[in-house]
């Protein structure tokens, strides 16, 4: 391989994934009800475009087009090991084929292929950190796959068919529970989330963007397929469980996000949060489906689908942005950044919009889906159902807490990283990213704004999916109020109107100030109580920013912090003190690590007993098993 041509892989696979994604988009627009089967000798690979998979095909393809555009330039730091582009191409393809597959073996094969390629991308950097992350990720995802396989096996035994066509309404509670558990491992829902904050940060940024923006949503696809297509529509408590788990993981996800220093890790925890929000929507929708509250079902489903789109767009753009920060400053640690906004002006604007979108600030798209979720939760409170009322009240409480905490976490992210003074030289030497990289981020960010302000087009498009899943639609009318339990209009959020109001009010204020205030401006240094203003260390640090909130919610964390002073120095004139803080995941600490220890202990006992070095013992086992079999035999023949 001539190093001169290294870039060719990047261009080739980048363009290829753009082309094929575009092809799939075209295919799905061309004819929405295609079905084809590739016959092999033993298993048939059948594929089908239905409304749900169509939605996901377009979603995956369009996001991967943006990310591919981005990585065409961004990837040049990975030119030395071009396997990145190869893997990521297949990663995208396997996801696209996954959502159109129409029988269980095809589904499982491409599901696992997706996992394998994403795993290879996680360990791409080849560091010790990436090994641990990769192992954890692959183990967890394997467990998930096995649970999914289990549910498919049970479906197969029930219907004696491999094709999805026969699974409609066949899945009972057991099957659904297994499938949901399996998929929620992939989605990173709270008790199973441990892999996610490790795996997402270690991968290259474009891969993190794909994983967080697209891949976790494959789990949502699976759950929707199982609950709303295969599900027999029983067990309303499943919906409630999903709601509660979703709410908890939303809250805990964002609480942990707030505590992070690593930009990508923060974003990864935020992915957990958003998956939690999506799960809440699914839970409400499924519960409403079982209990036959139609309009709540549709609204919650709209919330789910919209949030999938919104989260995909904003999270992928944020991950791409974090990749650019990493690329141009060589660090992802917020405590070493700061003041990037001056160096990377355009990126910071894009990043700001992404951050606003993901923390659900009103005129943008993130708020839209959360609003629908709130409305459906309020609706389920209003149904007066005996149990759901309390759970949805709790869910509203947790969701509102999540919303506020998301604001705090992302203020920290943006404020510490982009604003203030540069904290290290890394941050000082940053430059504006290449234009192609900016374009790659700009498109999803633009879409965020577009969907946020003018969502009617996408809602009317999503109605096809909602109809496929639930049998009803949500009005895509700008001025049609939502109804939740009875025919009376309940409420309305008209984003376009709000946006216009914002624009009008700001221009009015601007004009007023233009006319009535002095336009004088003076640039001067920040007042720092007379101290040296060059000292960037005087700024608030990221850890300090979140510490007060963390102190209030300290029961969620198991944090260990200590301050080390140099010894033998005068008490009040220390030259140096070291503050270390370690924030541990409570699930990791109280569930995963003890489980691992238990397994290792058991294996040690087993290993000692079963794999004895002593040949006499081995022979003893041989004859012992003979005798045991003999005794059983004697009992059998009587």
């Amino acid at each position: 391989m001539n190093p001169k041509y290294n870039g060719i892989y990047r261009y080739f696979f980048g363009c290829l994934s753009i082309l094929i994604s575009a092809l799939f988009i075209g295919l799905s627009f061309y004819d929405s009800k295609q079905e084809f089967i590739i016959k092999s000798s033993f298993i048939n690979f059948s594929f089908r475009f239905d409304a749900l998979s169509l939605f996901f095909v377009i979603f995956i393809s369009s996001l991967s087009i943006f990310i591919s555009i981005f990585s065409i330039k961004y990837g040049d730091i990975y030119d030395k090991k071009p396997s990145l582009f190869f893997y990521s191409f297949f990663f995208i393809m396997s996801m696209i084929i996954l959502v159109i597959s129409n029988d269980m073996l095809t589904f499982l094969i491409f599901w696992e292929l997706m996992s394998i390629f994403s795993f290879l991308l996680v360990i791409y950097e080849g560091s010790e950190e990436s090994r641990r992350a990769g192992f954890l990720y692959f183990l967890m995802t394997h467990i998930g796959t096995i649970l999914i396989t289990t549910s498919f096996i049970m479906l197969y035994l029930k219907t004696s068919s491999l094709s999805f066509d026969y699974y409609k309404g066949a899945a009972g509670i057991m099957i659904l529970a297994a499938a949901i558990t399996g998929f929620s491992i992939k989605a990173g829902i709270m008790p199973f989330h441990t892999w996610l904050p490790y795996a997402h940060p270690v991968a290259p940024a474009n891969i993190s963007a794909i994983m967080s923006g697209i891949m976790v949503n494959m789990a949502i696809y699976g759950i929707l397929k199982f609950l709303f297509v295969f599900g027999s529509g029983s067990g309303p408590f499943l919906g409630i469980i999903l709601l509660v788990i979703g709410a908890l993981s939303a809250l805990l996800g964002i609480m942990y996000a707030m505590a992070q220093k690593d930009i990508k890790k923060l974003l990864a925890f935020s992915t957990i949060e958003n998956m939690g929000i999506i799960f809440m929507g699914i839970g409400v929708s499924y519960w409403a489906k079982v209990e036959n509250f139609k309009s709540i079902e549709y609204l919650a489903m709209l919330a789910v689908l919209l949030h999938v789109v919104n989260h995909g767009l904003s999270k992928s753009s944020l991950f791409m942005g974090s990749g650019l920060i990493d690329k141009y400053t060589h660090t992802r640690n917020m405590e070493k950044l700061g003041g990037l906004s001056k160096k990377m002006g355009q990126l910071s604007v894009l990043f700001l919009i992404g951050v606003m979108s993901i923390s659900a600030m009103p005129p943008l798209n993130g708020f839209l889906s959360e609003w629908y979720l709130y409305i459906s939760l309020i609706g389920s409170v209003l149904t007066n159902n005996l149990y759901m009322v309390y759970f949805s009240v709790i869910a509203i409480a947790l969701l509102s807490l999540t919303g506020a905490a998301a604001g705090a976490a992302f203020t920290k992210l943006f404020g510490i990283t982009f604003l203030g003074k540069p904290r290290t030289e890394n941050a000082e030497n940053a430059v504006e990213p290449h234009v192609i990289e900016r374009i790659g981020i700009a498109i999803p960010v633009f879409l965020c704004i577009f969907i946020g302000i003018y969502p009617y087009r996408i809602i009317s498009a999503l109605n096809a999916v909602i109809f496929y899943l639930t049998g009803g639609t949500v009005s895509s009318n700008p001025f049609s109020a939502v109804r939740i339990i009875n025919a009376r209009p309940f409420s309305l959020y008209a984003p376009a109107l709000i946006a216009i109001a914002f624009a009008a009010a700001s221009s009015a204020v601007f004009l007023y100030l233009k006319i009535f205030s002095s336009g004088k401006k003076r640039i001067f240094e920040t007042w720092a109580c007379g101290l040296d203003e060059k000292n960037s260390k005087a700024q608030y640090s990221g850890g300090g920013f979140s510490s007060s909130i963390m102190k209030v919610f300290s029961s969620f964390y198991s944090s260990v912090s200590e301050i080390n002073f140099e010894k033998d120095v005068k008490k009040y004139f220390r030259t140096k003190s070291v503050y270390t803080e370690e924030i541990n995941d409570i699930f990791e600490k109280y569930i995963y690590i003890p489980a691992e220890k238990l397994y290792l202990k058991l294996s040690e006992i087993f290993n000692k007993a079963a794999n004895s070095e002593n040949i006499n013992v081995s022979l003893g086992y041989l004859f012992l098993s003979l005798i045991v079999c003999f005794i059983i035999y004697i009992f059998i023949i009587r």
Partner: protein
Amino acid sequence: MIMEKIAELFIILILVSVVLNVSSPFIKFAIKLYSFQSLMLAFYILMGAVHFNSINLYGSFVITVIFKVILIPYFLFKTLKKVKIDKEIDMYIGIPEAVVFAGSLTLLSNLIAQKIVTVGITFGAFVFTISLATFLIGAMLMITRKTLFSQIIGFLTIDNAIFLAANSITHGMPLLVELGVLFDLFVSILILSILILNLRRNAAA
């Protein structure tokens, strides 16, 4: 009738040789006992051959004598000479306990044989008891003794037990099969001897 009694004597001698084997820590003696035991087996087969006038059993007698009585003990002796071990030192259970254990295994096998043997076996449950007991005691030898030779002896005892069973409950396996089995046994003893030598050399080095 008298033939049967004589055959029973041979069989009892097999069991006795095995029990003697258990009671002695000397390897040379054990190999000799094995040779004797195989000879008793061969005589037993010969009795069967005379009784049924079966050419198959005559052939079986010949190859048993060649392989089990002569060749295998010869090679074991040769190896033993090179390795220079004469006594079993490490045992998991002491000799008196082992002998008592062997006795109880015989009782156990009698019990099992009574239970299993229902239909016409040539010489009845008696042979089955003995062969099972021999089998189990051989297994016990393999399990309880650490020296490699004792393990080989135990293995060979098991093999003899199976041969005894084969020649008592049936009129011997087909000659082709028997030849193959004995040849395999012989080769395995050869290989085990080589291994003993190599292990010894490695341990010495």
